[in-house]
């Protein structure tokens, strides 16, 4: 399964990235054709090309509306979130030299969850009833969960500092402590929540991509893409860190700089994703492993491929979530776990036989 056998990785890297990009494009087009209003892939291409004035489209107004106002923003939203979670997971695993790390490890998810429950519960305490799906509420929830995620990450980062240097073990333990504290506060919130709030919050923790709008896509784009680009630039330092922090420093890596960039970019990308779509587990943990096992542990491949792979996994999951109980919709987190786990276990057993771990 290991394609690369030499250090002349740049060819293999180009092949893997191109293949995954094509897969993503195909999934994207196919996914756009699926739903309550059927639109064929060729019709989709026609509509899209007509928007930039290249072709005339014979599509109905309904098809036009569904594609441009519902499916396109939703799928772009899905791709961005999947890519953000994938690259964040792979860079954190690389930084911590630990295959069990996922974006939640640095406290960002639980911090964001705390922010979310504050908004969901908050209306009751200040005496205004507020919807979190429309009006002011739809922006307040992402804002609070984003701030919660960032604050939790900063506290974790601060806890991990020993004599001015970030100690990874202490940082992970700090993340565990922060997560435990946040869970306690969230638990308290749940205790006082009414039925409706409880339901809203549980759905939020399982992830939800249905709230996508063009506004959200526009806001999400820089907040996910910029950290993703910054993280992609860290492939070589992360390769060196695989040998150990001291060894990476001896090879010329500015360790502290890499740590701060990785943690901050991940907090930004994951914080934004969680803020807009709730907690979507599994993608950040498993996609990097699948990429490493299928292709190469070289971060020059793992980082971009995890972004593409994360987007693909989330697109597939979203397709299933939208169609399997149609016209209702399953929470996305259930699907990512259900389709990702068996594949992951299969790879794990295949890899165990080859003694790669």
């Amino acid at each position, binding site marked *: 399964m290991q394609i690369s056998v030499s250090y002349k990785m740049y060819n293999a890297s180009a092949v893997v990235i191109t293949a995954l990009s094509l897969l993503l494009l195909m999934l994207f087009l196919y996914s756009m054709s699926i739903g309550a209003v059927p639109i064929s892939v060729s019709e989709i291409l026609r509509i899209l090309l007509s928007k930039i004035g290249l072709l005339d489209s014979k599509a109905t107004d309904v098809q036009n509306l569904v594609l441009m106002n519902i499916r396109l923003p939703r799928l772009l939203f899905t791709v961005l979130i999947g890519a953000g979670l994938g690259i964040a997971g792979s860079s954190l695993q690389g930084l911590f030299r630990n295959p069990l790390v996922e974006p939640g490890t640095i406290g960002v998810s639980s911090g964001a969850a705390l922010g979310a429950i504050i908004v969901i519960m908050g209306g009751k305490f200040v005496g205004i009833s507020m919807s979190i799906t429309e009006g002011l509420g739809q922006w307040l929830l992402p804002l609070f969960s984003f701030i919660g995620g960032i604050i939790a990450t900063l506290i974790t980062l601060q806890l991990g500092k020993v004599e001015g240097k970030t100690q990874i073990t202490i940082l992970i333990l700090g993340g565990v402590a922060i997560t435990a504290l946040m869970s306690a506060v969230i638990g308290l919130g749940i205790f006082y929540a009414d039925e409706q709030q409880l339901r809203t919050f549980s759905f939020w923790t399982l992830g939800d991509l249905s709230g996508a709008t063009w506004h959200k896509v526009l806001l999400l784009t820089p907040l996910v893409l910029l950290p993703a680009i910054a993280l992609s630039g860290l492939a*070589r330092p992360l*390769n060196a860190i*695989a*040998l150990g922090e001291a060894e990476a420093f*001896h090879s010329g*890596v500015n360790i502290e700089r890499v740590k701060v960039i990785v943690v901050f970019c991940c907090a930004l990308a994951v914080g934004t994703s969680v803020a807009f779509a709730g907690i979507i587990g599994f993608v950040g943990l498993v996609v990097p492993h699948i990429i490493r096992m299928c292709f190469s542990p070289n971060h020059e491949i793992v980082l971009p491929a995890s972004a593409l792979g994360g987007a693909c996994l989330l697109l597939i999951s979203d397709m299933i979530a939208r169609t399997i109980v149609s016209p209702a919709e399953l929470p996305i987190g259930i699907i990512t776990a259900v389709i990702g786990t068996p594949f992951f276990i299969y790879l794990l057993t295949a890899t165990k036989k080859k003694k790669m771990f």
Partner: protein
Amino acid sequence: MLEAKNISYKVGGKNIINHCSVEVRPGRFTAVVGPNGAGKTSLLKIISGDMSRYAGEVLINKRNISDLRSDDLSILRAVLPQHTTVNFPFTIEQVIEIGRFAHKTIREHNNVVIDEVMQHTALLDFRGRTYQTLSGGEQQRVQMARVMAQLWDQSNHPKYLLLDEPTSSLDLSQQHALLGLAKSLCKRNIGVLAILHDLNLASQYADEVLFLKQGSPVAYGPVLGVMTKSIIEETFAHPVEVIYDEWTNRPRVFPLMARVPHSIQDQIKQYTYEHAIDR
């Protein structure tokens, strides 16, 4: 030259290193020996730039290492640890390539360097192998190739290789192969500093030896001057005999067993007295 000047280092009020100085000259092999807990590894960490809270200064080619960025420093010195684990299934070429991290050279040149160091470390047969599947000795050879790749380019300024007990988990032939490689690097305008546990390896490969005990230098100088019965016994608190080995022109150390019958002890004393160099 790589100079550590008057280094002192304390942890929680306890002196780990006391006024210790050492010079690594290009083309020379310097060994640091001493019992466990003598501060050898701390001294190496200070010299390699890992630690910043110490008294004294470390100069590399006349520049203070605390003023140098990690990438500039890595062009001048490489460090080989005792043992290196890699958590992900990297191939050995990928591991060796990490030695080229700070070099702003094109990929084709890096590949040539990687080929050359793999040839010198007899790793060509292992091409494409996953690092994790190699034995401890082979892994250490890959790491040696990595630090060689880091220092391989010809340059006007001298470079330095620091080794932290590099042979501690290697068998006899691997130990000599590794130290032989380190010694051969001296010809490339590289100065070598190695922490060694085996006094006979130190006396065979080193030009200068520093004896450390409880963080303080006991003796420091050319092998023939310091590898003596009195200095070794003072440093390690263990009886030894030292003879001059005519074949290698080096001292040879015989540590005595803890409980040796008096008759045998007398025979050893008689033999080593006849061959001793510091009578």
